[in-house]
């Protein structure tokens, strides 16, 4: 027997990998009309994996101390072999993840894939989106640039608007009355350990929900079936479907490659796209930059606050909107999933996207 074959047999007899492959990969059948939007989950897993790898590499050189953090980033960018690449992959990768997450959420909304007893899948996904924004925010402080410092000062100051506990919360978040070494320490801990652990758990839960309930069919074409609300648990099967591996996996791999190409194109041809000038200046608590803008995915919230006469109203409106979005599967109970048969939903969907884009642009130029 050849050594490789022998090794495969040796492992298989003990762990049953072939059986696992036949059942979970080759035997895992997807709907025949599954489309390209279904690849975004795999794209996100690939991007998050890249974040973990580049994050670990950055951790080898980054120093979470307010006196040394900025210098350590400069060291990574200028002296560590390929340090600039790891840092850019990490920072720009975070923005690409946000793009992929929003596309994933919008596609799920459009195809009403949250229907058919998939509330847990939607909720875990929605929390992943929010947690990722939290990871972006905590990661923002770590370079200890002017942008980091003042963006965090303003963001943590926001907690003060919450009635009764606001002031305590501000100090709790910062670890001190003002943003400083204590803040950097706790944001660092949250960014590299706390939040990633929770995120990994949530991703596991999300995948479990998808796998356990069964993947939803796209609501298009002759195979369309309305989602049924059965009084008992049922795994949605696709007996005439296509195998996940290798048939659909190659499409996942193709889209992952295109996303990687897109990210590298930004890194090599437009590296400054997500970095304003204040991102390259060391934090100075005594000099406030004139124009601090949040990242593009927070711009809508930034501008929405300015539209309303008081901060607390703006805040309340956003909380109501996000709560509505989180609870959508519990509110939208109709069985119909075809967009053509849901004109009200599609109108709100399109207007919602246009509003998001318009408010974000307004926020950028305000």
């Amino acid at each position: 027997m050849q050594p490789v074959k022998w090794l495969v047999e040796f492992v298989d007899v003990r762990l049953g990998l072939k059986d696992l492959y036949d059942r979970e990969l080759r035997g895992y059948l997807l709907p025949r009309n599954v489309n390209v939007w279904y690849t975004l989950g795999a794209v996100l897993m690939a991007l998050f994996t890249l974040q973990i790898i580049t994050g670990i590499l950055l951790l080898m050189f980054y120093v979470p101390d307010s006196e040394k953090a900025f210098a350590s980033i400069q060291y990574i960018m200028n002296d560590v072999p390929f340090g600039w690449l790891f840092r850019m992959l990490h920072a720009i990768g975070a923005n690409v993840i946000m793009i992929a997450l929003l596309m994933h959420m919008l596609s799920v909304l459009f195809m009403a894939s949250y229907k058919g007893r998939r509330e847990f899948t939607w909720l875990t996904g929605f929390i992943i989106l929010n947690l990722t924004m939290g990871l972006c925010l905590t990661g923002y402080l770590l370079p200890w640039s002017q942008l980091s410092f003042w963006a965090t000062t303003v963001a943590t100051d926001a907690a003060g608007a919450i009635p009764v506990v606001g002031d305590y919360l501000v100090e709790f978040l910062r670890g001190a009355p003002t943003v400083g070494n204590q803040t950097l320490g706790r944001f660092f801990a949250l960014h590299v350990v706390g939040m990633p652990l929770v995120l990994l758990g949530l991703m596991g839960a999300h995948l479990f929900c998808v796998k356990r309930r069964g993947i939803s069919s796209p609501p298009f074409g002759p195979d369309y079936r309305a989602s049924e609300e059965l009084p008992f648990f049922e795994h949605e099967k696709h007996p005439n479907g296509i195998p996940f591996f290798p048939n659909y996996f190659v499409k996942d791999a193709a889209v992952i490659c295109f996303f990687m190409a897109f990210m590298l194109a930004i890194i090599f041809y437009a590296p400054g796209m997500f970095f304003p000038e204040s991102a390259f200046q060391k934090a100075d608590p005594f000099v406030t930059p004139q124009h601090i803008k949040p990242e593009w995915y927070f711009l809508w919230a930034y501008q929405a606050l300015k539209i309303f006469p008081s901060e607390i109203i703006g805040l309340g409106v956003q909380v109501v909107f996000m709560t509505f979005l989180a609870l959508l599967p519990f509110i939208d109970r109709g069985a119909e999933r075809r967009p053509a048969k849901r004109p009200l939903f599609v109108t709100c969907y399109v207007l919602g996207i246009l509003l998001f884009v318009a408010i974000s642009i307004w926020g950028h130029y305000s």
Partner: protein
Amino acid sequence: MSRSICCLFVLMIVAGWSMPAALLAADTVCIECHGGQEGRLGAPVAQWRTSVHAANGISCNDCHGGDPTDYAMAMSPERGFIGVPKYTEVPDFCGRCHVGVAEDYKAGAHGQAIDRGAAQCVVCHGNHAIQRASLDLINETDCSRCHSYERAALIRMSLVETDTMVRKVETDLDRLYRLGFAVNDMQDRLFNQRNVFHRTFHGVNVDEVRQKTAGVQAELGKINMEVASIDTTLGERKLWGSVTIAIFILTGVVFLLVRKAYEEDEKG
């Protein structure tokens, strides 16, 4: 959605992004008082807001002294208030910060003749609305107000090439800085050379200007070589980046073709 998610969202995103302006340093008492006045007492505030001084955080008290935090003592000589300098005192007034320029100016023809009404700083540069200096300040219209333009024209000609070099190095270093390169050392050296360059022509001595600008050009040339070396590295990175991007796109296309083949099988 649970309240905790709402709170998390609130903490993360919303409330505070709103008003960065609120965090800006408060105006000094000088600006608060004079900003509300009309005529010659209020005009300097609006002019100053457009100036290079304002853009760099240089406020009233940095030149005029006094206490910018205390209404009662803001214009007290006890707190170092100077007020408006006399015509002949202006070079010393500005020279507290622009030391080298003042030194060369005083040694030059203008500085030596200031008692007889020769040009001093504000004659050419203006005062409160002062902008970043450029060679445009040496022009026939302005210089001819006091004397013929020939000598000034010669000085200007000797400066043009160096000025262009300084601007190019500035632009290059800013570009590299925005890409995350540590260019502090080069920026410091440029700063020194720019100071040497700027003070040079305040002496209004043609030979000295030619000699000193040659030295400045040599130093700028060294910085240019370092910039070129970084640009070469950037070019190599871009080349390898392009290759990697092409590989990813091609691999993606190959995967799509494989998928196409599977689709044919699935139809069958």
